[in-house]
């Protein structure tokens, strides 16, 4: 019987060596270790042995069984490895092929610019206020201390719906609405559409966007205006830009100023964007004229405030170097998708 065991082991070795597939190996396993397998049968026939012989033979048979099981396991393992290898070889892909197209949409560049400006001012505690595009003459002009003969009121400058209703020429009417509706402290920005009677060309658009701001509180000074807008400019255009406040005139503020920033493209040495001057005009601002505060019944002795306003298209054109304002309203996808 010992010889039988030897033969089985020898046979198993030979067969496993020849086996080249998992199925063949499995067949060998069944032939040896299955219910009717040769080793199983030998073990079953052990009953006919004497107890001392049984013990010794059982030991030998179990060791052969363990050896065969070990061989089988190794065989299966190496065959599986081989199989995986083949699969990987067959499944090789060209990883340099392009990825499957996934496409987010893109915000309109005007919206992107408004969002950026808004984010900066919101970080400084300004809330967003909005108002209608069609406004009263009172809110758009009278309440803002614009004289009855101011040329901006002309039919050639402003679109009218009736004698007392117009398309707002600025978002300042939102300031008026807020001053009337709210007690100080007031700290708002108002982004939105505005309209002026300009025929569209590369630098003019009858519809455009503004962001205006207003801060009314006790103890607001012109130094606060400078600090707020200087911080805004640095956050929007980069910490290196410098600001310059030049005296100017607006009916609704006094003192009034225009703010220039040092050119954020060339750093102030002069380039195409700043037209060689090193400075770029960005916004108008000033201390709110007492006549405007009075419209909101605000105590002008107790409260002071500053206001500012900027053209969104202008800022977008400067930032993105867009040379024709009409592109914003043509909505060619090849233009809009550049702002991803």
């Amino acid at each position: 019987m010992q010889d039988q065991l030897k033969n089985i082991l020898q046979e198993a070795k030979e067969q496993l060596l020849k086996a080249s597939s998992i199925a063949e190996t499995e067949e060998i396993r069944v032939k040896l270790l299955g219910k009717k397998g040769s080793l199983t049968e030998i073990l079953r026939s052990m009953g006919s042995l004497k107890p001392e012989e049984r013990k010794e033979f059982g030991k030998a048979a179990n060791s052969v069984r363990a050896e065969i099981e070990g061989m089988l396991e190794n065989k299966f393992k190496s065959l599986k490895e081989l199989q995986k290898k083949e699969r990987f070889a067959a499944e090789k892909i060209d990883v340099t092929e392009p990825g499957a197209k996934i496409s987010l949409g893109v915000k309109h560049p005007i919206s992107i610019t408004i969002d950026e400006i808004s984010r900066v001012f919101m970080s400084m505690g300004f809330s967003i206020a909005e108002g209608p595009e069609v406004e009263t003459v009172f809110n758009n002009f009278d309440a803002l201390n614009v004289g009855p003969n101011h040329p901006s009121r002309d039919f050639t400058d402003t679109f009218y719906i009736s004698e007392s209703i117009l398309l707002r020429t600025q978002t300042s009417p939102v300031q008026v609405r807020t001053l009337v509706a709210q007690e100080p402290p007031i700290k708002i920005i108002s982004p939105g559409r505005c309209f002026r009677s300009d025929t569209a060309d590369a630098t003019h658009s009858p519809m455009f966007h503004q962001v205006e701001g207003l801060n009314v509180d006790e103890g607001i000074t012109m130094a606060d205006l400078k600090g707020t807008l200087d911080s805004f400019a640095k956050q929007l255009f980069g910490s290196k830009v410098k600001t310059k406040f030049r005296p100017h005139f607006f009916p609704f503020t006094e003192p009034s100023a225009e703010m220039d920033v040092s050119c954020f493209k060339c750093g102030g040495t002069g380039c195409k964007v700043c037209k060689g001057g090193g400075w770029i005009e960005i916004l108008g601002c000033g201390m709110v004229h007492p006549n405007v505060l009075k419209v909101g019944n605000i105590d002008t002795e107790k409260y002071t405030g500053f206001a500012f306003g900027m053209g969104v298209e202008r800022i977008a054109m400067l930032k993105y170097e867009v040379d024709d304002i009409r592109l914003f309203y043509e909505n060619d996808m090849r233009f809009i998708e550049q702002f991803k």
Partner: protein
Amino acid sequence: MLVPIEWLNEYTQINTDIDIFCEKMIMSGSNIESVKRLGEDIENVVVGQIVDIEKHPNADKLLVTQIDIGEDALIQVVTGADNIFEGAYVPVVLHGGKLPGNKVIKKGRLRGVESNGMLCSVEELGFEDKVAPVALKNGIWILDKEYPLGMDIVEAIGLKSTVVDFEITPNRPDCLSMIGMAREAAATMESKLEYPDTTCLKEEGNAKDYIDIEILKPELCNRYVGRIVTNVKIEQSPWWLQKRLMYAGMRPINNIVDITNYVMLEYGQPIHAFDIRDIEDNKIIVDTAEDGEVFTTLDGTDRKLNSNMLLIKDGKRGVAIAGVMGGLNSEIKDDTTTILVESANFNGDSIRSTSKNLGLRTEASSRFEKGIDPNLCLYAADRVCRLIELLGAGTVIKGAVDVYPVKQEAHSTTVRVDRINAVLGINLTGEEIKKYFERLEMNVSLEGNIIKVTPPTIRQDLREEVDFIEEIARMYGYDNLPVTIPKGNTEAGKSRERTLKDLARDIMIAMGANEIQTYSFVSPKGVDNVGISNDSQEIDFVRILNPLGEEYSVMRTILLPNMLEVLGRNYSRNNNKVKAFEIGNTFHNNKGDKESLPDERESLVIGCYGEGENFFTLKGMLEELFVNLGIYNTEYKPESNYGAYHPGRCARIMLKDTELGIIGEIHPDIADKYGIETRCYCCELAFDKVMNHAVTERFYKPLPKYPAITRDIALLVDEEVYVSEMEKTIWESASNLLESVELFDIYRGKQVPQGKKSVAYTLTYRASDRTLIEEEVVKVHQKVLDALKEKLGAVLRDV
């Protein structure tokens, strides 16, 4: 406002580098449009004298000249100009010489005759056409007198000049003059200001013997000064005067006209001169015109006047439209010998409305409109006389006829030191503030915190305390103000509407749609184009009274036409796949009340075309949008009568009884109108209504603890049955064990009879408190199947 520095120097010395001067002026409030340095790009152009002129042998229109430039040999130059004469002094460009605009002149042959240079016109030496002296228009520049031959022309006639173009804000009409700018320059540079000489050395007679002046409308005419000059000789002005006018942007005409223009530029006071021969009865009457009166202005145009317009009359008739333009009947002529110099102050609003009504805007009218100090009238009239005397252009008659009913007095304002400091965030003393005011020629008295300040009457813009605060700010220097951050602490916020709009925008972008922005004003035809012009709500436009054109004449009532225009434009530009959206306002008349503001409603439009797009991809976006806005249970009601859309592929979007919008495939005829030759899909939501129903709060629901049992069913049903009805039936017939119903397939074709479709669902059953047993589900599921069969004739198919 063009200011030649050389002219400015007459009143205050600008002794500093021009760039520094400009920067300081900008920072003190006189913004600068441009700085022109003239005469710098002229090279090798010299003074020459024409000694001989011959006809060109081969060309009728050309002349051959011999020019003496102070050298041994004469220079031969061929020219086409016909205003030259022998003996004339002219500018000559020599071979290799340079003219403005980088023009290089070389010698050559003109129709066979040698030409060794070029004679120049005023324009060729760098002046604009519109300022070229009348006498020299379209001709060679004949110099006014003898200059050393061969001398560099730039040096000889002083062509090198710096002209600063100041931007004058509407509150500072006083700066529209050389003296006004000199006043600003003196205050800025802390230099001395000197006023021009207005006294004549020799005067004769008495003006009162020549003219009588009466103001009948004192509310429209504050002052009228008349002076008389006799023995007038009309001729060319000297070059120095012409040059100043040209640099300041005015065309020299003749000595008298030039002097009136010169004084207007100097003081900002318009001056008019009449030929006194034409003034009937030696009388000037300031009155209004008759309604319908026709008057011929000196440009030869007949103007129809009305009774609101100020008219300067003599004893019999109108002679000038006050402050706008003189009359043809009394203008200065070549043989004029005695003139009346008018220096008057008219009401700005009156002049503005006259000028507007006549459609006639002149240098004078635009100045009167902005407001002029009436105290200037006499100085300006005297200055005219002084210059006439200086130029030897006439004999000045003694005295002025000055009618000045109510003298404009200087006006005092009280200003507080602490208020100035509080507004500007600085800490100046009363004394320091006083000094700043004094730099601006103001009278100041200081008492503790109170400053009484009296500006010159020329500064009509200074009325209230805040006006003076601005004066201190700009004199102190905006750049010297500290930089601080407001102390108040406020929370930033945005409205629910703004938050939802921003959210919707982000959702649309995440789903791959690009945002567009289109005009709020549109053509009324847009509504026709999308086939809904019979919809009364959409054609009740808010109309613009003065639109840029019909195509921008009404406020939009829907966004769809704008979207289709954009889709069409992109299609025509071969952008083969587009998915776009816009969130914007629509405008609707407020019923009954034309004087109240229109309703503005937020709208959201989505449009798409291209490979892979269909009704259901668009609907899918919409469903995802609604879910993200917390809106559930929207229903799609088929709509076959909305003109913009395909009658079989359009639905109204309903939330219970509220219509949120409409979705569909664009009707092929409509797409055709916009040049879109492919299927395109659009949807427009009443976004204000969507916002009303949006829910932004989110609450957690526990995850299921017990397993679910699912059943896949395929149902054979008539084509006409809407799947929404099937789902509704399933939900209504199931118990609360039904957790979800998901449609996973609709099949038509083999094994499905004509007119039927097979609709397959996965039904998921689950109890929240226990593991379901098969028997429970069988019962509920059978009820569902029975209801489907009974109500919709839907039969379970063997799969």
